[in-house]
């Protein structure tokens, strides 16, 4: 893998740091009047999801990480692993709970999501930004109440709990933004 010098650091670049693949989020050039220049870098550790802040001397370099984002179809879970398939070649990958993490509450069979592969193995799963899921449990809807703006918790088929408007019922399908966990609208049926 190529190595990258601080002047090549850009948001999105994948590099190795402390043995873990990381994505650069931000690179700020810092230089005191007559002194050494530095790169103040924010990186996301792709294994843990944690954000690190590191400062490097200008000209330091980091090894690139073999990390590829690939669109895959979510197939099913056997309880221990979550199975994904690359639609072009039908190649299947399995990911454990540590990899799927927060994505699991949004994963619906057949949906397309992004699986991040590190050295060919799943490292992280990103659900689609918007998903449509069925309400499996919520208080009975208040008929006609579309105006008061009140909300109530609703459990969705994947297990996620989101706040929905009062008029919705069990069995309704809702559209949710997975990045914020917010209800967007009732899905058209």
């Amino acid at each position, binding site marked *: 893998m190529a190595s990258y010098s601080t*002047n090549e650091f850009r948001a999105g670049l994948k590099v190795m740091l402390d043995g873990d693949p990381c994505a650069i989020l931000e690179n*700020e*050039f*810092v*230089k*005191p*009047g*007559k*002194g*050494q*220049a*530095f790169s*103040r870098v924010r990186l996301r550790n792709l294994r843990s999801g944690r954000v*690190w*802040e*590191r*400062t*490097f*001397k*200008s000209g330091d370099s980091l090894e690139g990480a073999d990390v590829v984002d690939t669109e895959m179809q979510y197939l099913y879970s056997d309880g221990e692993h979550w199975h994904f398939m690359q639609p072009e070649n039908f190649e299947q990958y399995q990911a454990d709970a540590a990899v799927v993490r927060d994505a699991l509450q949004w994963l619906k069979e057949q949906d397309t999501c992004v699986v991040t592969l590190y050295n060919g193995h799943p490292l992280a799963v990103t659900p689609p930004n918007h998903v449509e899921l069925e309400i499996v449990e919520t208080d009975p809807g208040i008929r006609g109440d579309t105006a008061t703006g009140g909300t109530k918790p609703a459990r969705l088929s994947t297990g996620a709990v989101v706040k929905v408007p009062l008029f919705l019922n069990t069995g309704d399908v809702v559209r949710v933004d997975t990045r914020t966990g917010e209800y967007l609208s009732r899905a058209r049926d």
Partner: protein
Amino acid sequence: MSGWRPTASVQVLERRAALLAQLRAFFAARGVLEVEVPVLGRTGVTDLHIDNLAVAGTPTRFLQSSPEYFLKRLLAAQPRAVYYLGKAFRAGERGRWHHPEFTLLEWYRPDWDEDRLTEEVAELLVSAGVRGQHQRLDYSDCFAAVLGLDAHAATDDELRARAAEAAGQPRAEWREQPRDICLDLLFSLAVQPELPAGMVFLTRYPACQAALARIDADPQGRPVARRFEVFVDGVELGNGYWELTDAGEQERRFARDIERRRALGMPVREPDGRLLAALQSGLPPCAGVALGVDRLLMVLLGLAHIREALAFAED
């Protein structure tokens, strides 16, 4: 093709033109002579932290990172107050506050020392529209207040440990770093963000941060650089010295830089022989300062990125 438009707004360009006119009027009223010195020189600088842009051709020429050496040669020939307001170039400096091609205001005052020059810098900044009083702070006092460390007396290992911690890196990474680089890191990451708002002159830098300033003993007998930096609202705008005039000492500092460049595998830059000859012939005692004009405009107008201060920032 897109991307052809200016990066600064018309309003900013109008304010920029007014600022340049104001700076020239300030010096005209004080009898300081404007001099256009070359931006292409035979040599670059030996400074480890400044990378000159080399221009292909025979012989290779270097875009000047500041007009300093030419202005000092002028002073050695004729001791009168001079200034340069124009372009300077530094390779690889890119960021919110940096652009490889930038506008520098640099001036020299024969017979003044750096303390007297700070007063004139404050007057210039006020005339340009910076508001409020200025204060003078000691580098090591600020360092101690923020980090609880004595910038002069702390051991190299103490500084390395604190620098590694501030950088978020394992200590081993900083085991061999020289003292001045540790100070640079700690200052930029920890001390500078805590500087008070308004105009601040930071003085009495540790001797290892002297660059081209004279080194003297402070009242406590510690060797300090006769150097200052000026900040407005925490943004570094300029750097000044009571200038080194000793040709022998200048030659030794050049040689030390070159040796360190070799050891680090950096490109080796020839020392400027004409500057050394000028110093040998006699540079009058003088103080000099360089101010970043694009940054001054940013501070005055509250601009978020240097490209907004430049008619055409590089793509």
